């Protein structure tokens, strides 16, 4: 039987209450295996980002459960969910979420520092991580000195530096031009294929479609299509 990295079972989430209640996810069940670049696609308001929040252990489902490498999230308190995120999941955000006061290198070091690794070894690992995404030459620059594509590369280096088995990316190409977007898409595919990580990308960018090995389509909080790409 193939190992699973991330599982969502009958997940339901509703925002608001009473007449103002808006169901964001309805009976979503998905299983993701390592070494796969999965795209979650759909129109705005279809529940993609809510699904990513739930898969990323940042939001608890009203009903159902999420398992990260076999560990149920529902049973964990906030602190333990944080531990689970730190140990298992790397994040790439549409808005990059780099720390303005830190250089590219220090942004990557920060992820190691949060995980309890600091000093020269952490800096060496962060330098390796930046080199792996082609950012070694710009390690000393601050985010405002980088282009959108470069910021996203730094964000990917930060997401990978602790070597998490899962990478969740929210619209990673949305803020980028065509070329930078394609580079990021290739990079994410390589992370899945060559490093054996599960990469889940929420996107409505059709440029990402050719790179997805699995495509999950959502509408009105439901999974309407889940297919392996050819």
């Amino acid at each position, binding site marked *: 039987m193939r190992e699973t990295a991330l599982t969502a079972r009958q997940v339901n989430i509703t925002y608001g209450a009473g007449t103002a209640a808006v169901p964001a996810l309805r009976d979503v069940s998905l299983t993701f295996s390592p070494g796969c670049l999965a795209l979650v696609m759909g129109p705005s308001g279809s529940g993609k*980002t809510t699904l*990513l*929040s739930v898969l*990323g252990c*940042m*939001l608890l489902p009203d009903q159902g459960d999420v398992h990260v490498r076999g560990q149920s999230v529902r049973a964990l308190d906030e*602190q333990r969910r*944080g*531990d*689970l*995120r*730190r*140990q298992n*999941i790397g*994040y790439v*955000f*549409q*808005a990059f*979420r780099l*720390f*303005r*006061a*830190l250089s590219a290198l*220090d942004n990557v070091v*920060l*992820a190691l*520092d*949060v*995980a309890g690794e600091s000093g020269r070894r952490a800096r060496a690992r962060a330098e390796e991580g930046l080199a792996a995404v082609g950012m070694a030459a710009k390690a000393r620059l601050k985010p405002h000195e980088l282009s959108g594509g470069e910021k996203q590369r730094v964000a990917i280096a*930060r997401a990978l530096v602790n070597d998490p088995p899962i990478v969740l990316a*929210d*619209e990673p190409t*949305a*803020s980028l031009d065509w070329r930078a977007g394609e580079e990021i898409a290739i990079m994410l595919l390589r992370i899945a294929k060559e490093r054996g990580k599960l990469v889940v990308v929420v996107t409505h960018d059709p440029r990402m479609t050719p790179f997805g090995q699995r495509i999950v389509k959502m509408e009105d909080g439901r999974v309407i299509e889940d297919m392996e790409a050819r």
Partner: protein
Amino acid sequence: MWLAWRNLNHDRFRFLVTIVGIAFAVFLMIFQGSLLVGFLRAASKPIDMTEADLWIAARGVEAFEFASPLPERFYDIVAGVEGVETVHRMTVGFTFYQKPSGMQQSVLLVGAEPGIGSRFPVPYVDAMRTSLAPDAILVDSSNAPTLLLDLVPAGIEISGQRARVVNIIDGFGSFFGTPFVFTGYEDAVRYLRWPGDATVFLIVQVEPGSLQEAKRAVQAELPEVDVWTRDEFSRRARLFWVRKTGAGGAILMAAVLGFLVGLVIVSQNIYATTMENLEEFATLKAIGARRWYIQKVVLMQALACGSVGSVIGLAALLPLLGPIRGTISWIDTPWWLPTGMILVGLVMCVLASVASIRKALAVEPGRVFRA
């Protein structure tokens, strides 16, 4: 914590505003603290400088400066109490001092018999401190300009009687505006010209180890007076000036205001910095930072501001203390005061960061997915 320092360094203007606020607060707290300590010490200094074990004063006397006369026979009664070794008389009263220019100046005249303590200013004739120079008075250097004294000895008049300022002393400056003038007991009685009794304090030294017994015995012999140990009377005098006059309270209030002003400035700036970096705290939470890690970032930012601001506040005040002492002779900055106020400043910063820490911890990590 390097992230805290980098955050501060990134927004240097806000950092500057914060440390200026803290520096101002620490400056104010140390300055007002120095005034309060100096005020309290000055309020009881004549009492503390005696070698008395007991002070005997008319019932209800609360401060050295405002005493009323005791019947002269009390001197002999006290001298005869078991356990009493020596008794000395002291008189204190307001009178007029005629400056060399002929202008009158109100002064507080203090006259004491020899033997009440080597640190108490009395115009002794010799180094043996046994006899007093006649018609001689001592004036504190901080009051010399008020009394138009350039050189000593200087001939002046007190209550229309001739006297000589024979020496200028230090450390006995008046803290309430009226200069202190020190002389011997007999001369003071003569200058004051009170009708009837002139002694206002009896200064008692008791046999070693018999302080409380002697106090009780004196009180039993003279139930109509107050009998205090030196420490008790010293504390009573300080409390009088702090509570009853409101002067000490006002100084204390200014120090508290300094603390509050600093607290508000630091709170606002640290809170604003936290709000500005809220997305970054959300990111920290999203990538799994523990609660203490986030607390540490905010706390370290506050403490870094506090440390730098405190050092600047102290560095700004220290060179000014000399010139300030020229104007306020009794101001006193013991070593523990700056240390204590810097600690208070750091506590202030910790308090200021509480709201920011709560805000940073409460942020939803899921907000990082919003563009």
